[in-house]
C-alpha cells in the first residue's frame, strides 16, 4: 500500500483549511505538484510545502504527522482511502466525508463528523462539541457512517443527527443527542444534563443510569431484539463495543423528548 506522509514542519499560528488534501482530489497527482498546492493560512495563501514536508506516494493512505488542533477540515468530503492523523485534529474533522476511514491518534476539535455521510471516523482521544452536528442553518447533521470516540465527547454530540452511529467509550457532555432526528448514540461513560434535548427521534444507548430529563417518560424495562443486531454490527470494531462483555439486550426505555415530537428514546442498560 502506498502511503503519503504530510509532516507539519512547524505548528502554525493560523488555522489551516486542510480540505484540499483528500484522496479524491489528489489521486494521480505527482508529489511535486501536491507540494505546490495552495492552502489558506489566515489571509495568506501558502504552498503545501511551506507547511508540510511531503513524502511518499499518493495512494489510498495519507498520514498527517505532528498534527495540530489548528488543522481544520481534515478529510473534508473524503470519498475513499484512509487518513491517519498523528496528533490532534482541528475543527470540522471529516466534514461531509462520504467513505473511507479517518483515524485521529489525538483529539479532535469542534464539529468533528459534521454532516458526515458515510465511512468510519475514529478518534482515539476526545472530541469537541457538536460531534456529528450540522453547520448553522443546515437541518441535518451526520447522515451515515460510524464514529468511534475512545475518549470523551463535548456538548451536543449528535445535534441534528439524521442517521448513523456514534460510539463513545468515555463520557458525553451536556445536551447529548440534542435535536436528533434519528440515528444512534451509544455512551459507555457518564452523560451530562439535558440529555436528548428537543430530540425528535433516535436512540441514546447508555451503560450508566443518566439524569433522565423531565420531558422523557419511563416506558419500562424491555428485552430488545434489535440490540443483538446492534452489537453484532460492532463485532469487528477495535473498541470496547466489540467486547462480548459489553453486550446486553435488556434495557430501561425512556421516551421523549415530549416537548418535541417525542418519538426518541433513551435506553439504559439493566444489570
Amino acid at each position, binding site marked *: 500500500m502506498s502511503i503519503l506522509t504530510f509532516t507539519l514542519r512547524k505548528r502554525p499560528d493560523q488555522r489551516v483549511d486542510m480540505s484540499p488534501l483528500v484522496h479524491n482530489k489528489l489521486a494521480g497527482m505527482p508529489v511535486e505538484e501536491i507540494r505546490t498546492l495552495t492552502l489558506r493560512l489566515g489571509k495568506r495563501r501558502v504552498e503545501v510545502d511551506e507547511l508540510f514536508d511531503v513524502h511518499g506516494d499518493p495512494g489510498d493512505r495519507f498520514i498527517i504527522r505532528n498534527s495540530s488542533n489548528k488543522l481544520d477540515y481534515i478529510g473534508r468530503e473524503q470519498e475513499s482511502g484512509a487518513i491517519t492523523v498523528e496528533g490532534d485534529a482541528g475543527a470540522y474533522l471529516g466534514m461531509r466525508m462520504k467513505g473511507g476511514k479517518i483515524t485521529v491518534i489525538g483529539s479532535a476539535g469542534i464539529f468533528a463528523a459534521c454532516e458526515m455521510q458515510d465511512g468510519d471516523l475514529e478518534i482515539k482521544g476526545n472530541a469537541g462539541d457538536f460531534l456529528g452536528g450540522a*453547520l448553522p*442553518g443546515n*437541518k441535518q447533521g451526520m447522515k451515515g457512517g460510524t464514529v468511534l470516540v475512545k475518549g470523551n465527547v463535548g456538548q451536543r454530540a449528535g445535534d441534528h443527527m439524521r442517521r448513523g452511529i456514534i460510539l463513545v467509550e468515555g463520557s458525553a457532555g451536556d445536551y447529548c443527542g440534542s435535536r436528533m432526528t434519528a440515528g444512534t448514540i451509544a455512551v459507555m461513560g457518564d452523560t451530562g444534563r439535558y440529555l436528548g434535548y428537543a430530540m425528535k427521534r433516535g436512540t441514546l444507548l447508555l451503560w450508566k443510569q443518566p439524569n433522565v430529563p423531565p420531558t422523557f417518560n419511563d416506558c419500562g424495562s424491555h428485552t430488545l431484539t434489535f440490540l443483538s443486531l446492534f452489537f453484532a454490527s460492532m463485532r469487528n470494531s477495535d473498541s470496547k463495543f466489540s467486547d462480548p462483555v459489553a453486550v446486553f439486550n435488556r434495557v430501561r426505555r425512556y421516551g421523549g423528548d415530549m416537548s418535541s415530537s417525542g418519538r426518541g428514546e433513551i435506553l439504559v442498560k439493566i444489570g
Partner: protein
Amino acid sequence: MLIKLTGGTVYDPKHEINGEVRDLYIRDGRVIEQPSDSKIDQEYDLSGKVVMAGAIDMHTHIGGGKVNIARMLLPEDHRADPACRSELLRSGCGNAAPSTLTTGYRYAEMGYTAGFEPAMLPINARQAHMEMGDIPILDKGGYVMLGSDDFLLRMMAAKKDQQAINDYVAWTIHSAQAIGVKVVNPGGINAFKFNQRTLDLDEKCAHYGVSPRDILVCLATAVKTLGVNHPLHVHGCNLGVPGNKDTTLNTIRAMDGLPLHLTHIQFHSYGTEGDFKFSSGAAEIAEAVNRNRNISIDVGQIMFKQTVTASGDNMRQFANHHHANPKKWVCMDIECDAGCGVVPFKYRDKNFVNALQWAIGLEIFLLVDDPWRIFLTTDHPNGAPFTSYPHLIRLLMDKSFRRDMLATIHSDAARASTLASIEREYSLYEIAVMTRAGAARILGLSDRGHLGAGAAADITVYTERDDKQKMFEKPDYVFKDGELVVRNGEIVKVTWGTTHVIRPEFDPGIEKSLADYFDRYMTMKLGNFKIHDDEIREDGRGNLTVHPCRIGGPA
C-alpha cells in the same frame, strides 16, 4: 465629456423606435440630440448590436426588514453562492437572498439600472432606504405599504372623509420617502393580529368592520386624487389560495375604472378545477386585464429552484408555513403598521401545483395583449431570484424552447395548461416595452426607460443571439447615467444611483392627529418617525430625485 454610441440597432418604444439603426450621444449623464460641433471624446461602435434603455425592475424585494430576515434565515443559501471581492467590487453573497452589494452588481451585469422595492412598511422604510443605500449602480425607490395599518383602519371605521385619508396617504409617502403606495392583503395583515385567518374581498375585519374592498377603493382613490403616478400597487386577498381568480376578478370589477396595479398576479390566478382542485385562471385574468385599461399587472413568474418567499402578508405566509423548505420560517407583526412572513420555498417541476404555477405565469404573459400594462417580474425572490430573468425572457421569446421546458414538467400540469397551444413569441420591442418604457411610464419616471434627448443615459447594449437567455444574461455594455459600468457582462465601474420619490401635496393639519396617535399608541415620536432627505444623502453616495405628481391629470 461627449460619448457617441454609433450605429446600434435601437429599441426605444417610448419613441416608437423598433429596431432602427441610430447613433446616440451622451453628455453629462444624459442622452442629447446630435451636437453640431462638439468633439467626440469617446465612441463605441455598436453596429450589429441591440441598444435599449437600462432595464427597470418595478417589483423586486431588495431592501427592508423582511429581506434581511430572509438573509438571517438562510446562511446555507449564502454559503452555496459566495461572491468574491475584487479590486473593484466588495465581497458578498448571491442566490435567493443576496447581499445588497451583490444585488447591485448582478442586476447591473444583466443590464438593469433600476429596481423598486414594493413593500416598504412606513415604520421600516428607514431600513429599506439604508439597505437600498448599499445597493450600488441601481436607481432605487419604494412603494410604501398601507392598508393594514391601524391608523388608516381607525380613520375608515370612524368614517373620516376621503380628503383626510388622502392627506394621511400623502403624509406617509413623504415621511417614508416613497414613489408609490402598496397594499398587501388589504386589511388581512391587521385581521390576522385579531386571529382572523382569512379575509376575502367582502369579508370584514372583525375589529374595524371594514372590508378589503373598502380599503382598496379608499386607497386607490387617494392615490389617484393625489396625482401619484403609479397606480395603487396591490397584492390582493387570498394569495396562493385555489379559486382566488374570482377574488382577483372581483377586485378588478370593484375598481370601477380606478387605476390599479395588480402585482405578482400569477399567485392570484388560480381556479379549483381538476383532480387536484387546482387549475389555471390565466385566461380569465388575462381577458379581464385586456378589457380593463385601468388595470396593469406584473406577473411574479415562478422558476423551479430553491428560493425564499418574503412578504408583508403574514396571514397567508403563516398559512403557507407548512410548505417551508427547508423547514424554517419567520412571521412577524410589526408596529401596528403591517407584518411580514418569510418562508423558504423550493418550487419543483414534478410537483403538480408548482408546475402549474409556472405554466400559469407564462400563460398570463402570453395572453395579455398590451405589453405596456404587464411587467416582467419573478417577484424576486418570491417566485425566483431576479437572476432568472434572462431565462424567463427566453421562455417568452422562444416558443420551441418553451415547449421543450413544458415537456419536462409534471405531465398532468402540462396537460392542464393551454401553454402548448400558445404561439405567441415576444419581440425585442415588446421586451423593451415591458422591462423599460412601460415600467418607467407606470412609475412616472419621465427621464428613464427611453433613449430620447433629455433621458438619463441608462443604456444597455446587447449582442443579438438566437439564444435569448444568453443574450440577456451578458450585455456588452451598460451605461448608468452616462458612465460605462459594465463591459462584457462584468462590472468595470461602481457608481451609486438615485432614489426616486414623489411628493404629493397635503394639508399638514393631518400631523396634529398623527402626533396625538403617535404619542398615545406608537413607540416613537412623530418627528423621529419621518425620514429626512439628509438621511439618504448624507453618506455622500445616496441622492434623491423628486418626480412631479400629475395633479388633475387623467389616470
